[in-house]
């Protein structure tokens, strides 16, 4: 498959879990500032793929990854890559909302407080100087992140309440705010709406469309209509292989591969 100039370039990516060859020679390019949906039946390698993009599979025992995932001209699997920095730049939101057992404010403030703030003047000189956020800076960052996640109006009066008091949809948007607070470039979503009702789902989908202006978004979903609604491009995986990757409209109107057609029309198996 042709490699385009994308935000994430995946070249011949293979993943094994012990003897199980979970991803087989996946090669494609995820475009910048677009939403790319990953669809396919259970066990096809969707989640394995998305977890490769920020090296989450590193922590899985007996997992072996070969091939390249290139972000900003750098293979994230090179030995000199800082994995913590990779996960800051490539944020991830999971299927089930997983806020920390802390206040709403602390959920968002937690990561920036640990990572610290990069000094812009030093960055201009090509130096890496990190300092702690001041209290005011942290408050501003938390507010901006929660606003960006379209949650501010619902939580601004109860920032010190437990995140567990929020509804499922609000918790998921809080997790998105938490990811945004460390200034990522790429956002990965692993079935972010599967535990949410249609109203909360609609809010997350609206948010995703808004976020693509500033971020590259990759979403794994079982809900094909969700992929059709929000994604610019769609990739169909089957048995660890990338079967088809194209404009979402084309995938759902006139797919080129018979397997894709069989899957999306519910005639597989």
């Amino acid at each position: 498959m042709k490699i385009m100039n994308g935000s994430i370039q995946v070249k011949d990516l293979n993943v094994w879990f012990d003897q199980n060859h979970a991803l087989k020679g996946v090669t494609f390019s995820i475009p910048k500032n677009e939403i790319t949906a990953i669809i396919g039946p259970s066990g096809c390698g969707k989640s394995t793929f998305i977890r490769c993009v920020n090296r989450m599979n590193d922590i899985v025992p007996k997992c072996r990854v070969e091939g390249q995932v290139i972000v900003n001209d750098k293979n994230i699997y090179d030995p000199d890559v800082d994995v913590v920095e990779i996960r800051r730049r490539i944020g991830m939101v999971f299927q089930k909302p997983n806020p920390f057992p802390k206040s709403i404010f602390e959920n968002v403030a937690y990561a920036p407080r640990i990572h610290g703030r990069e000094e812009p003047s030093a960055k201009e000189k090509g130096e890496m100087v990190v300092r702690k956020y001041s209290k005011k800076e942290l408050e501003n960052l938390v507010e901006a992140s929660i606003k960006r996640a379209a949650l501010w109006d619902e939580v601004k009066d109860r920032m010190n309440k437990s995140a567990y008091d929020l509804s499922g949809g609000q918790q998921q948007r809080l997790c998105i705010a938490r990811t945004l607070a460390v200034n990522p470039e790429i956002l990965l979503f692993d079935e972010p709406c599967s535990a949410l009702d249609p109203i909360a789902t609609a809010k997350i989908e609206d948010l995703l469309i808004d976020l693509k202006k500033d971020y590259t978004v990759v979403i794994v979903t079982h809900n094909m209509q969700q992929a059709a609604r929000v994604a610019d491009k769609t990739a169909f995986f089957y048995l660890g292989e990338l079967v088809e990757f194209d404009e979402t409209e084309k995938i759902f109107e006139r797919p080129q591969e018979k397997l894709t057609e069989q899957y999306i029309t519910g005639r597989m198996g």
Partner: protein
Amino acid sequence: MTSRIIFNQEMGQLNLEVSQMASLAREAVEKAVKCIVNKDPLLKAEVERLDREIYHLEQIIEKRCLDLIALHTPVAGDLRTVSTCLKIITDLNRIGRYASDIVEVYDVVTSDNGFRRPVNIPHMATLVVAMVTDAIDSFIRRDDQAARQLFERDDEVDCLYDLNFRATLTYMIEDPRKITVGTHIILIARYLERIADHSCNIGERVVYMVTGERLNPKDRKKSPDKSCPKEALAPKLDYHDTGELSQHDLAEK
């Protein structure tokens, strides 16, 4: 029963109803042409009945398509099939209407004041009925190649319409008493030409349904120079009341 089984049943029913509607439309055109050419007034009521039945089926099919979209959210080939059905029922309904319009002018064109010279209507009708038949068959057989062949044949019908127009106009100039019947002959030719266009529309939608390719209506014309294909100029056989074909005039006296 799973939703997928219900969906497949609904799609099967949709195909059946569209095929049924298409057969009625073809029958309406055939009978309208026979009614005029063979001067058979009994067929007039039959064509009008068919037109009403076609309209009724259009309503049923449109509702089925909308239900399928609302309840089952079809995609890919299924989506193209539903959208094609939604589009071609309009063409089939129009074909039925034109058949009804043709028999509406029965009294005028079969009057004693008819034409002595051929005006190509029977030949044109033969071509048009064949086009309707082939368009419908291409839908039933999902044959995009057969559908594409319709476009060239439409040029032939367009050409015959032009010839008919010029010839009829000449007769009307020669004898102003024939203006009324001549105008109605031109109308019949126009209806037949439009039926051929609707057959091409069906063909265009069949190509989309089968391949996903959207044809540009401007590109489907194969003869941009507007010169008539030889087939259109060659004398052809006309409808006879036995269903056989014979060469005769509309109102030979």
